[in-house]
């Protein structure tokens, strides 16, 4: 093996460690205090006091119930709605151009979506009666669905875009149509089963996220009965440091809740799968056509209206002077909010950009090298994998995908506190390094996924040809492969920036509040006195990733223009 090959292998191993170690270490870091061991506060013995303290929390059953209700409810609604949207877009071409509309919701951070929804909905007459802060988690479920539908939708789209699978599935679909099935029924019976198999991990990630998310229930939930994640953050940040012990128990309970919910989901899959098989095999050629068509169309229209309303309302609000309730437009416009907001935002904005650019750079380089080592792997075990995989992915690849999903499946609230404790132990003064590493855990998987598809599709013969002409593996990597996937690199880089920009809890915890970013400031201002200033922050939060994506697109375009000259 050449030094480069060895290096790329080493990077891949490092990447696995980077993803798995912090989660394991962080989990370990909450198990100790949960067992009553926290020497810094004078708790030197292992006992069950912390566990008793946690289970003595008043209304604990309601807290756990609300957590499960919002988590499972939001995932279920998101899945059904996104399937309806995918079906409508898959079956009816004219709809496919509207899918671009969902992109802004994908890149906007959760906290920003929650804030924008408050601006739009809380002064609205009858919606304002229950939105936000209702006791049953309806507001939380609503906001989570708004945010997770685009995620599942685009995950499905990227699965359906894989050429081999696409060819296979559209063959099934056309056969269905020719046998007289209506379009959506054909989709449900012939495409969805294969599609669901491949978006199962993203669905699990949504479930885990919905159960453990902090920003949305913090901004929209009632503080009378909180979700468990909000209660945990409340205890961890309390002046009374002894509350960290029950908070650690809470973090472990939250992790167990996630596992229980995932198992329940798996169990329901079996049961629903059983009935679904009957549905697939019955000869009803229009089964599910009408309800799904209606749901898909209504959701599409609903999302379109909501996004347009959110964007225009937030935009106008940021320039508004007085705006009495009930009037369509404000009495006047002013630049005051923007000048105040931008002046206050300079440092947070700079911090956000530094973190986003650095972590994305690292993530792109690491992902590319990891992918490169994987290609080698495949070439050497080509025959074996050919025999094994039949067009699907190999067991190795599946295991690696699972590893990539670990940070998305283990609740951040649960392992981040432990991780921060560890970071303070290992490098107490390196704030930026701590925050950067915490971001990287979340940025890496997304960057890897964005790159993996196109990198794995590079025709190996280009590389073999170049190597036979005397190019070293390193030069093949730099001069042959990277140019081939350049647009994907630009896109993956922008994706990494968007993910880094949206991180709230990792930034807050790892920096101990000392590195302010636009996202942490926006959440801090959420309950502040000026909603016009909030609007400015929300817009900046939306514009930043948008500008980065556009720049990535422009760079990719000019790259090709130069190449084809």
């Amino acid at each position: 093996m050449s030094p480069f090959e060895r290096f790329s292998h080493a990077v891949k191993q490092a990447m696995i460690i980077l993803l798995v170690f912090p989660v394991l270490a962080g989990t370990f870091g909450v198990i100790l205090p949960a067992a009553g061991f926290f020497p810094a506060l004078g708790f030197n013995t292992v006992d069950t006091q912390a566990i008793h303290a946690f289970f003595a929390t008043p209304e604990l059953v309601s807290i756990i119930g609300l957590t499960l209700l919002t988590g499972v409810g939001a995932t279920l609604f998101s899945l059904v709605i996104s399937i309806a949207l995918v079906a409508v877009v898959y079956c009816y071409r004219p709809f496919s151009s509207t899918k671009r509309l969902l992109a802004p919701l994908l890149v906007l951070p959760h906290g920003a979506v929650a804030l924008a929804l408050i601006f739009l909905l809380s002064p609205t007459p009858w919606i304002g009666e229950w939105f936000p802060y209702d006791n049953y988690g309806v507001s939380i479920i609503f906001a989570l669905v708004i945010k997770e539908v685009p995620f599942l939708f685009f995950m499905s789209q990227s699965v359906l875009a894989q050429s081999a699978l696409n060819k296979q599935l559209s063959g099934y679909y056309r056969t269905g149509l020719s046998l007289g099935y209506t379009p959506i029924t054909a989709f449900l019976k012939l495409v969805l089963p294969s599609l669901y198999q491949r978006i199962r991990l993203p669905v699990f990630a949504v479930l885990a996220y919905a159960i453990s998310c902090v920003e949305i229930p913090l901004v929209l939930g009632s503080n009378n009965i909180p979700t468990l994640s909000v209660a945990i953050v409340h205890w961890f940040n309390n002046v009374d440091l002894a509350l960290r012990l029950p908070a650690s128990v809470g973090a472990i309970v939250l992790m167990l809740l996630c596992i229980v919910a995932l198992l329940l989901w798996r169990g329901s899959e079996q049961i629903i799968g059983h009935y679904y098989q009957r549905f697939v095999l019955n000869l009803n050629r229009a089964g599910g056509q009408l309800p799904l068509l209606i749901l898909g169309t209504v959701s599409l229209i609903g999302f379109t209206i909501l996004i347009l309303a959110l964007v225009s309302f937030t935009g106008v609000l940021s320039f508004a002077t007085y705006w009495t309730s009930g009037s369509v437009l404000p009495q006047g416009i002013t630049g005051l909010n923007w000048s105040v907001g931008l002046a206050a935002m300079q440092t947070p904005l700079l911090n956000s950009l530094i973190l986003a650019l650095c972590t994305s750079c690292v993530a792109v380089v690491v992902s590319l090298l990891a992918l490169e080592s994987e290609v080698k792997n495949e070439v050497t075990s080509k025959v074996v994998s050919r025999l094994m995989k039949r067009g699907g992915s190999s067991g190795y690849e599946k295991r690696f995908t699972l590893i990539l999903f670990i940070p998305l499946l283990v609740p951040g609230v649960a392992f981040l506190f432990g991780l921060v404790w560890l970071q303070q132990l290992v490098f107490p003064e390196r704030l930026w390094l701590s925050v950067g590493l915490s971001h990287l855990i979340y940025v890496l998987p997304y960057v890897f996924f964005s790159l993996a598809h196109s990198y794995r599709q590079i025709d190996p013969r280009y590389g073999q040809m170049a190597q036979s002409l005397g190019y070293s593996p390193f030069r093949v990597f730099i001069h042959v492969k990277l140019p081939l996937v350049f647009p994907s690199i630009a896109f993956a880089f922008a994706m990494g920036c968007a993910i880094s920009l949206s991180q709230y809890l990792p930034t807050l915890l790892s920096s101990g509040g000392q590195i302010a970013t636009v996202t942490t400031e926006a959440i801090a201002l959420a309950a502040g006195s000026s909603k016009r200033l909030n609007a400015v922050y929300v817009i900046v939060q939306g514009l930043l990733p948008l500008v980065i994506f556009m720049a990535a697109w422009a760079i990719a375009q000019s790259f090709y223009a130069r190449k084809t000259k």
Partner: protein
Amino acid sequence: MFNWQITIGFLKLNALLCLVVFACGTIGATNEVRFHAWGGSAQVNQYIQWVSQQVNQQHGITINHVKLADTSDAVSRVLAEKSAGNHHNGSVDLIWINGENFAAMQSNGLLAPSWVNELANFSLTNPTENPAVLTDFGLPTNGQEAPWGRAAMVFYYNSAHVKTPPKTAHELMSFVVENPGSFAYPTPNDYLGISFLKYLLIALNRGNTDGLYRPAMPEMFAELTTPLWAFLDTLHPHMWRQGTHMLRQASHMQRLIDDEVLHLGFSFTAAEIPSAVNRFDLPPTIRTYAMADGSLSNIHFVAIAYNSPNADNAKKVVNFLLSPVAQAYKKRLDVWGDDTVLDVALLPNEDAQLFQVEGAHPSALPPSERIIMFAEPHASWTDALRNAWFERYGARY
């Protein structure tokens, strides 16, 4: 030879030190007043600068503003001087103080004995009607500190929705019952939240408030809080979100008033309301007023260190600080916006007019508004009240 040089050098140094000490003593005793005051606010610093110019013209006194990061620094300096036996030539003349720092200085005998009644302008605060200027967080001032400024809890309402705002605690109750969902207050973790509870506690125990100015003993606490809990038990179901979701911060209350969801709010800084209106964060129909049954108020004072060599000049400065001119200038929104401790109703017309020059902002507290001041209860009531509230109404996250 070598030893001699050192000895001579040492003698020279001693002589020099004596000179310096002597010089300091003479300078200190002339016309400089060293005003130890927290220096964290540009507005306050500029105001002290202005005061310095004024007293220099009137009395030939210069003020040396020693900008403190924390008032307790000056307290410990005086304490150190006392323990070192420096009883006549201290480095602190005037000190801006209240609450626990005052308590610490008083109990350690670090303050000049009763001097406030000597000041001509002190009578303008109308101490018999406004006993709040004579107590500092439950401690009698004993004439050892003079009131300088005040923050009082004022209420504000949206006149587009509310014609006659409630003027007493009992009117507040009927207002909330008649307009369900239009009022909310922050949890006692917030400064304004706990202040609201204190206001109710005092207002609901009218004529029986002596116990509030002594340490909170369980029996007294139970007796005095009974009417408060009864009041809140009735109030909560009629509040915004039926009192289940409670505001975390007072700033959120202000935002909901801007959203025209709530129509009544309160603040400890009257000056902040017109400036929020100017920033468009509150509607222009907002009006500010003070409760007729009293406003919780928080007075800040100035005191003189017991070992100040310039006590007489310091008193002249304090007398100027209490003059209508200085108090009116301090109250201007563009200067500091700090409320006066004078009873403006007592002032002769020409002086009272000084306070009326500004206040043209329709949302600001009308300058003529008479404020009956409730002094802060004894410091021990704060924690007791907060804990009891959470015990009774449940934790809020």
